Each structure stands twice: as C-alpha cells, then as structure tokens.
C-alpha cells in the first residue's frame, strides 16, 4: 500500500513538473515549426544524442529553422517517425518513405506518399528483390537516404543557382499571394530543385562510385567495379568540370527515365540496352545534344573500358578461380553479359596495347643504348684529338 502511495505521489510530482515546464516552455516556442507533438521540447537541445552500440554518435538534435525551411518542414514528426508514443522512445520504427504522411496532395486530394517511387525502386536493380530473386547481401543495397542524403537542410536555391538577388525577386512575386515567407521559400526550393540537377557531375560520380568502385562489394553481386568509367573521355570531361559533361546518370538515367527505376542492361527498358542506345547517345528529347548524329554502329559499342568481366572471360583456365565464390559469380554473369563479339574486341584491344608496349620498350630501349654508345664514342673522339 505504502509503495503504491509513493508511486502516486511521484507520478503526481512528475506530472506537475511536466505541466509547469510545458507552460513555461510554450511561449518560448518559435512559430517556425508546427510542433504540435512538442518534440522540440527535448530535441531542440544541440547536445542531445547518444552513442550507439557500434560506438557511433547519434545526434537527435533538430535545428528547427533549418527543418522549417526544408521540404518536410510542414510535416509533423510522427508523420515519418512512427512509434514515438513512448518516452523514452523504445519502439521507434525505421522511417519508411512509402508511408502516407497525412498531407493532402493538391492534384488528387489524396494523402501524399512516396510509395510509387519506393515501389519502382524495389523493382529496380537497387531493390532487394523478392522470392527466388532475393539478393543475397541486402545490406549492400542503398536505402533512400543513401542518395537523398540530406535534402531537407538546404537554402532556397534553384535554377538560378547562386544569385541571391534573383531568388529574392522571384520569391517576392510568390509572396504577393503566398504571404508566409517560410511556405514560399519551401515551395520555391522544391520546384526549382526539380528543374536542374542538384548534384554536380563529380558529385554524382562520387555518389555512385562510393559503392560501385568497391571491387569486393560488387563481386558479391557478380558485378565488376565501374572504375572502368574512369577510362573514358566522358570522365575526363567531368574532371575538367566541363558543363554538361556526361556523368553516370546522363546515360543510365537519361530523359524519360527515373533514378529509382534503373534496370540491368539486359532489360529491354534499360537506356543502355542495345536497342535503346542510339536514343540514349543522341539524348533524344533532352535539352542537351550529346551525339546527335550517333549511328547504331557508334552507339552499340563499348562505352566503359573493359574490366574484370572481360579479363576473367579471356583467361583460359577459369577453373582456377571457381573456388572463390564471388569470382565465380562474376564469371557467371559475365558469360551472360558479354557477347562473343565484345570479348573478341577486348582481346584485339589488349593485343594492340601489348604490341605498342613492346614496340615502345624495344625502340626506346635500343635508342638509349645507341645514344649511350654514341656519347661515349664522341667523348673518346674529342679526347683523342
């Protein structure tokens, strides 16, 4: 009995403190975020965080101004973070971008959700696959956030890039009717971000190669490293920061394709499928004119340099590698992916290169010897005089 009494008193005291704090904090709340759930009661403190089991510091601080100007600034926390009902949060679920977020999508009047994107993504090469096609190492696959790393916290910028003045002028027009500057800025950013590539070409390549250049990780899935891209003129242009230089998405996600819907090259829909190459190389329907006169012969050639797949297939004694499971997987895929013609091309190119290496070594080597002898002889001749 005594125990329950104490508990009741404790709860009462806690409740009173909580209410007092609520009242005290309420006026201090800014009007930036619609924090009806009062999450910022705790999460507004910059030091808020903890170390997780793996020793990484997790930061739970939310900068309300940044959040307010983000695309998601109008959403309640619980719209995305399900299961926040208990404090401390013990049953929080991972954010699922396909869930509906109780915001009405104005064109349909239905609840908004990224579900269609997520569905596409799941069916794409980056999805986990299902049933017999389930991927063996799902932890290698990118999540939404892997690419959409932090799209919330960005200042309003758009097609007009860095011009603050232009942004202000355009925004001023929006705000004639949409009087809330926050709202106007958020939608302005949202629209204008969609009108251009947010990442520079180098950033795109860095993003894709962060996984695809990892030889080990790729081999687990029977793929080769796309370091082979860096042997192309396309990459040299990207390196030099040439405007409109072709990065990964220029060819793999050209006009009319979605980054969420990348298919393997054997898929008939894929822009790099042989049937679609001319369209992709000439960038039909796009603003940029890449190879407007591309013929089938030109477009169906190899774009990346030949990599590990060709190397493995060209070897005579593949059985030596068969013990290594991942390599045998690569060979298996290579047999499907690389046509006999491509393999022949690879071998010819390798021969040409080898021929030149020998030629250079022989010519320059014998020249050096010759000139060395000549030098000694000339000196000798001068001395003898």
């Amino acid at each position, binding site marked *: 009995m005594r125990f329950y009494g104490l508990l009741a008193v404790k709860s009462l005291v806690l409740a009173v403190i909580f209410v007092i704090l609520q009242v005290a904090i309420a006026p201090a709340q800014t009007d930036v975020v619609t924090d009806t759930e009062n999450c910022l009661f705790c999460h507004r403190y910059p030091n808020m965080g903890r170390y997780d089991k793996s020793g990484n510091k997790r930061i739970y601080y939310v900068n309300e101004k940044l959040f307010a100007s983000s695309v998601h600034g109008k959403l309640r926390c619980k719209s995305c973070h399900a299961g926040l009902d208990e404090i401390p949060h013990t049953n929080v679920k991972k954010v699922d971008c396909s869930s509906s977020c109780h915001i009405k999508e104005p064109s349909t009047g239905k609840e908004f959700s990224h579900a269609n994107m997520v569905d596409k993504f799941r069916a794409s090469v980056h999805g986990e696959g299902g049933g017999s096609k389930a991927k063996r190492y799902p932890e290698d696959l990118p999540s939404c956030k892997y690419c959409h790393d932090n799209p919330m916290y960005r200042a309003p910028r758009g097609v007009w890039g860095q011009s603050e003045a232009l942004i202000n002028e355009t925004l001023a027009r929006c705000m004639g009717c949409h009087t809330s500057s926050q709202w106007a800025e958020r939608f302005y950013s949202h629209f204008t971000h969609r009108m251009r590539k947010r990442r520079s070409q180098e950033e795109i390549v860095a993003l894709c190669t962060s996984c695809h250049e990892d030889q080990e990780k790729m081999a687990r899935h029977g793929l080769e490293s796309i370091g082979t891209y860096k042997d192309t003129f396309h990459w040299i242009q990207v390196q030099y920061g040439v*405007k409109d230089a072709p990065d990964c998405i220029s060819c793999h996600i050209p006009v009319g394709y979605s980054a969420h819907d990348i298919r393997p090259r054997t898929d008939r829909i894929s822009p790099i499928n042989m049937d679609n190459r001319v369209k992709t190389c000439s960038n039909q329907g796009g603003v940029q004119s890449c*190879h407007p*006169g*591309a013929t089938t012969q030109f477009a169906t050639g190899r774009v990346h340099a030949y990599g590990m797949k060709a190397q493995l297939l060209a070897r005579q004694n593949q059985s030596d590698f068969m013990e290594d499971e991942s390599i045998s997987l690569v060979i298996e895929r290579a047999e499907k992916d690389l046509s006999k013609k491509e393999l022949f091309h690879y071998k010819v190119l390798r021969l040409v290169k080898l021929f030149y290496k020998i030629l250079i070594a022989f010519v320059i080597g014998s020249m050096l010897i010759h000139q060395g002898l000549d030098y000694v002889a000339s000196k000798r001749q001068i001395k003898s005089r």
Partner: protein
Amino acid sequence: MIKKRWFSRSKVDAKSDGHKYFVRLNFNERVQHMIFLICFIVLAITGFMLKLPEDIVQKFGSARDIVFFYRGILHRTAGTIMILVSLYHVFYLLFKKAGRRWLLDMLPKFKDLTDMIGTMLYYLRIKDKHPEYDRFYYKQKLEYGALIAGATLMSLTGLLLWTEEMWPKFLLDIATIVHGMEAILACLAIMVWHMYEVHLRPRKFPIDNLWLTGVIEEEELREEFPLHYKKIMADPELKKVYLVPEHDEGDASLRT
C-alpha cells in the same frame, strides 16, 4: 625580313673568318621544321593534358572547363596545321627540285645496313673510325621514317576520333589506343633520339643552331658526313647547291 635574320646568324656572319659553310637545311625546310616543331609541342601538351592525374587537374581551379575548351581547340588546330605541313612536305618531295634530291638521298640503301654495322663496330672500339656517311645516315633515315609513319598514324587516328559519330565504336577504341601509345612513343623518341642529337651530344651542347641557320661548317661536315662532303667537292653542280659562297652577301642557302 625574317629570312635575313634567320640567315645572318653567327655562323654565316663569320664568313670573313675564312671558314666555308655548307647548306644542310634550306629555308623552305627550316620553315617546315619550325611549323612542325611548334605543332608537335602544342599537340603533346594539349594531348597529354587528358592523361593528367585528378589532383593536378583540380589545380586549374574553377577555370578548368575553360582550360579544357581551349585545350581541344588548340589540339585540333595544331593537328590540322601539322597535317597540312605533312601534305605540303609530300608535295615538296615530289614537285620541288630540292625536295626530289632530299627524297633520293633519304631512300634506304644497302649501304645503310653496312653503315649501321660499321658504326656499331666503331662504338665497340673494334674499328677506329665510323663509316663514311652520305648526306643522311641510317639513324637520320630511321628517324625520318618513324616520323612519316607516326605522323600518318596520328593524323588518321586523330581524324577518326574527331569524326567519331561516323565510325563503329570498336574502330574508335583501337584509334584511341593507337593515338595515345603512338604519342608516348613519339615523345619518348623525340626526347631520346632527336633531343640528344641536337642538344646533348658532345660538341652540340647546349644547342645545334642548324635548325635556325641551316648551315654547317666545313670541318664538321667533313667529319660527320665525309662521303657527302667528298661528293660536293667533286661535283661543281652540287657545290652550287650546297656551298655557301664566301663573298656572297645574299642568301646562298635560299637557292633550292
């Protein structure tokens, strides 16, 4: 007058000292050499810029796309000029008197093989003297041959890459490798072979002025190309062509 200046360099000015001078390269040939040389350097620099490592490319900073743009323009301009000079050179070889003489003197002969063996023996101290070379000796002929082969390959592959959309990608892949490897070969060959010949070789250091003056001293000619020297001295017609007249104020070497 640019011609005057080129020809009135030290060696020809020193005519009064009693030395005799002989023409090695006439004005036309020196101009060809000069244009080719400038194009070669421009092509090498702008070409190998494509092979620069990433961190060096970054050093161009925000102007690197402009650098890249002018790199491409320069490379193609220099390439075009080089092709034109090469075509002119073919014309020169066939339709000019001096050109035809050059072509005949440059054709490989059996003597070149014996010369080569003789030179090796001389280098190895088995013989006391090197063979008597004619106007061009085997090394120069080889270099000239390499230049023709190289220029042809580079021009062809360069033009292929320039008009890429018209060709199968496989052909372009071969062209890319040939263009790149041939460039490495050409640059190394120029450095090891040609630069040595005109810069590093004892008595030529720091530079042999021949590419500007076009003339060679009697002593040098007799020593380096004895057979050629003897032929000139024995033939009054050849003397007219090669010997710079001692009291001629004009451009002797202009005569072709």
